[in-house]
């Protein structure tokens, strides 16, 4: 169990780094969404179901949606940096 938690933690770090260093903005947003989803897993490991549900709905659902809508509105989806 411990090992799985630590693996999830390391993957979290990798995705955090990818989200910041990704070349395309859309990828960065997607990595952030994955990061959020992995955080949900971590919350469940740490016995915090309330937080996990909230993070799942708000963190990886709505926040991603508003990021994507912002990208739509500036019509830069897929553009380089």
């Amino acid at each position, binding site marked *: 169990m411990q090992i799985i938690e630590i693996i999830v933690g390391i993957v979290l770090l990798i995705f955090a780094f990818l989200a910041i260093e990704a070349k395309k903005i859309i990828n960065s947003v997607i990595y952030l969404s994955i990061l959020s989803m992995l955080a949900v897993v971590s919350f469940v490991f740490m016995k915090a179901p309330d937080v996990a549900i909230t993070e799942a709905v708000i963190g990886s659902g709505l926040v991603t949606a508003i990021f994507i*809508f912002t990208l739509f509105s500036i019509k830069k989806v897929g553009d380089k940096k």
Partner: protein
Amino acid sequence: MMKRVIAALLILVLALFIYGNLYSTGEGKLFPKFGNVNLSERVSNKFINKNANGENGVVTYKETKDAESGSANMVTSIVVNYRSFDTLGEVTVLFVSALGVGLLLSGKSRMKFKTPPNFILKAGVRIIAGIILITGVYIFIHGHLTPGGGFPGGSMIASAVLLFYISDDEFRTKVKSFKFLEGTAGSLYLIFGLLGLTMGGYFLYNFLPTGVVGELFSAGIVPIIYIFVGLKVGSELSNLISDFLSEEGK
């Protein structure tokens, strides 16, 4: 490139500073190691046993009656009972940021997506959105018994609205009615708080009987407040999405 190196060095220094001090050993109380937490030294000890204002022994599910906070979910009893004032502030944060987004992006027409939604998406959304809506309502009504509560429940309602927006290019919520719901739910929260002030002498006082721990009609004003929170969060986030999808008029 130079800037990155400097930033990386700065982060390294910060990391050494944090790791060196946080897990230091020596005199005085130390930061507890992961998992080795002694709850009896913390205030939350009293939140678990529901005896912040007096002793009442062990709390048992479906047996203990009239505990000071009758919610089976301890997080809920902290969020809407012991620290209800924080929740009021939290609702206000969403309120004011939704308001700010509305002030800045008050476009008249709706943003159109490049590819129009097809039939399957439309039909699917109608089925799924209903289920999500009902789940959201269930979650905030049962917030004091099961995981969840006003915030996830309200955001589920908002995500159902979001699905409608995606599936239908013409869809635009009746913003006015949502604004009205938002204002009403917020005002009712405060009015309940002021009712507690007049009836119990304390702002946000839990003036209803708390009942048996674990039953649907228990915990006094907790479920009622959570319903207000759910409705408010749902309408605020729906407004937020609708503002994000608006464009300057054509």
